[in-house]
């Protein structure tokens, strides 16, 4: 707070407008509050909004308009869809499906968890998938050994397979994560070139297939499991999962989600991803697949408000030309390399995004960094996708992504386990993305 007051009374740096300087002070305050969790999330959101008005950055009505948009609708809708989907109890069927495909060899089971988590997360978001997969993995661990300490490496191996698998998958389509939709919103807002749902998949999906085997190998090496086969656990899990019955409600829920998916693929450019997500929510409510009480209880309204506020802040960073000033500063720092060697720009974006995503959260990172990186020299689709994908490299901490928080909350993995495997996964992912973005994308373009 003291630093903010000092910054406020200091003159703006040369080349930066007063409103641009003030929005950067708000960014500083917001980042400090989000990282320290000194205030509840809605409180931070309100601080951002009121400061935008008090600092004279925009009129109240303009700020309100920038606060609510399709990206916020999508975040709201996807959080609600997650509740509706998890509530249907498809987890037992999923467990049976994985077992059928993988058998009982540990490395095959873990690969199956990672691959399926990735594919599902690419459509429904990593938070949904982690919540569905967690009880399956925990049950398997419980049935494998009563003494969890004896199989701690196996536990970490399986749990990280679902968390990191979900993270890797979440970049596959626009609906995989809120950050993807925030990026699409910025492309629209700043009048930049956009890509469709299917085009996004064409750019991003192959990366999932490259990363999943790498993930499985790295996890196997970092947490060599105490048991190489899980016969007993799998057998008992199968018996447990077979007790499930398919009800008409479950079928209805699946059909609704399929319709939502079709809507995202074919209608998102016309009506927006958020509106389609909310349509799905309405259908779930009408058919009784989920109740409002359930949605109200399980949706993190603080997150919605905060993302609304950070997107509004992002729009103001661009509007006040602070984004351009910051981008120019980065260009000055990078010099000729920024223009002549595109890999250098990619590396810089990836590094910055990865670092911030690990302490802030992926969506908030894209919301804050988006306006700045999109002002850097180069193709805005290329830069945007590099940023969105690297924001999913939240491998180092438990707070980086909900999927990581979910496995951390199981109590079977410790914060140091994230660092132990995270730095390897982060480093490999950065290298893969730089090569992938500068070869495969160049080819398909």
């Amino acid at each position, binding site marked *: 707070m003291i630093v903010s007051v000092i910054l406020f009374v200091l003159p703006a740096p040369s080349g930066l407008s007063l409103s641009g300087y003030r929005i950067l002070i708000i960014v500083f305050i917001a980042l400090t509050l989000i990282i320290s969790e000194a205030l509840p999330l809605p409180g931070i959101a309100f601080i951002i909004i009121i400061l935008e008005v008090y600092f004279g950055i925009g009129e109240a009505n303009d700020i309100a308009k920038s606060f609510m948009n399709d990206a916020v609708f999508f975040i709201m809708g996807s959080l609600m869809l997650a509740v509706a989907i*998890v509530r249907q109890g498809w*987890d037992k069927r999923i467990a049976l499906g994985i077992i059928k495909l993988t058998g009982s060899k540990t490395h095959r089971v873990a690969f199956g968890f990672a691959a399926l988590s990735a594919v599902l997360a690419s459509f429904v978001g990593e938070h949904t998938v982690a*919540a569905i997969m967690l*009880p399956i993995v925990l049950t398997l661990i419980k049935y494998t050994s009563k003494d969890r300490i004896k199989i701690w490496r196996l536990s970490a191996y399986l749990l990280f397979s679902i968390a990191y698998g979900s993270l890797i998958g979440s970049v596959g389509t626009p609906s995989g994560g809120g950050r993807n939709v925030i990026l699409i919103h910025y492309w629209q807002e700043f009048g930049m070139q956009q890509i469709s749902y299917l085009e996004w998949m064409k750019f991003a999906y192959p990366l999932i297939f490259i990363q999943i085997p790498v993930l499985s190998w790295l996890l196997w090496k970092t947490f060599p499991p105490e048991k190489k086969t899980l016969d007993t656990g799998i057998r008992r899990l199968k018996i447990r999962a077979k007790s499930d019955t398919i009800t008409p409600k479950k079928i209805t829920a699946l059909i609704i989600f399929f319709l939502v998916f079709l809507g995202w693929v074919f209608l998102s450019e016309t009506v927006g991803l958020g509106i389609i997500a909310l349509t799905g929510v309405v259908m779930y409510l009408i058919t009784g697949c989920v109740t409002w009480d359930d949605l109200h209880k399980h949706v993190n309204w603080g997150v919605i408000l905060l993302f609304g506020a950070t997107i509004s802040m992002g729009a103001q960073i661009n509007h006040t030309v602070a984004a351009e000033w910051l981008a120019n500063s980065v260009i000055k720092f990078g010099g000729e390399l920024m223009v002549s060697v595109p890999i250098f720009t990619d590396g810089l974006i990836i590094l910055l995004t990865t670092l911030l995503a690990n302490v802030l*959260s992926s969506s908030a990172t894209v919301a804050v960094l988006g306006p700045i990186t999109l002002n850097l020299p180069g193709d805005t689709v290329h830069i945007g996708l590099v940023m969105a994908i690297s924001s999913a490299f939240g491998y180092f901490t438990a*707070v980086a992504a909900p999927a990581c*928080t979910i496995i*951390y*909350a199981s*109590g079977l993995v410790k914060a140091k386990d994230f660092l132990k495997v995270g730095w390897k996964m982060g480093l490999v992912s950065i290298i893969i993305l730089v090569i992938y973005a500068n070869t495969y994308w160049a080819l398909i373009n």
Partner: protein
Amino acid sequence: MKILIAISSKEYSKPTLQVGMLAAKAYNASVTIAYVGQKISAFGKSDVDLAMESNAKWGLERPGVRVLEWAFKYLAENKYITPEIAKVGFQRNTLVDHGKNRLELHLKGNYCEEVDLILRRGDIIPELRNEVHQGGYDITVIGRSKKRRMAHDLVQYIDSSIYVARDLLPFKEFRLLQAVDDSKGTAKALLYGSQVAKAFKMPVDVLTVSKRESFGKGYMGAHKKALKIFEKSGVKPVSMLKVGDPVKTILETATKRHLIVMGISQLNPIIQFFKGSKPLNVMKKCDSPMMIVK
């Protein structure tokens, strides 16, 4: 009297639980055993809650329930709870969710009227502070933390007397080391010290340390008063008057078989934060169990 026992895991918390329950039995106090689980980031809280509900449908317990189950077994084996409750065993589904990350299991005690098991989630210091504030506890029993800063913060921010439990030793083998000076904190500490010595029949050493060669009126008066209080409660104390640095001298005098009792410092909390205080500095460095009376 109300006692709160903060436990962390079955591997490290046995001395804490044992000492806490012995004290509760001696005072016939209500006792609450609390476990504070990992803090969840505000971003993922709802997702975690949703995942935990899914876990419950699969019959999987919440993290931390196993620690409470271990505490329940300890209570049952040592007859701290009624045989009827012990016979039924630990019922996970009877944990009552009070919201705000707090689950509670209420048990009927044998020696202590009430025995509660609490499961909380979040930052350990704010959660224990909230629990103390909510329950109005007189003493909080904590274990020897590897993180010295943690014990320091607990002493600083929790609004009850703090008992820092160390290695497991029968109480009978302990001597009580009552550190006495002329501060306000000493008066209350003396009351606790005399009660503990009487309850556990502990031999007592009353120690007053002066920085100067001669002892002032205040220090001598406080020392004599302390001796009288112990004598009144039927304990014959050993008088110790030493010259030197108070913290250093207390540390040199205390053995592993001493239970140190000190009053809380009356210094400004900001000064304490930067400079520390006598009880905090002793606690940081000593290997003996310690009671800091507030």
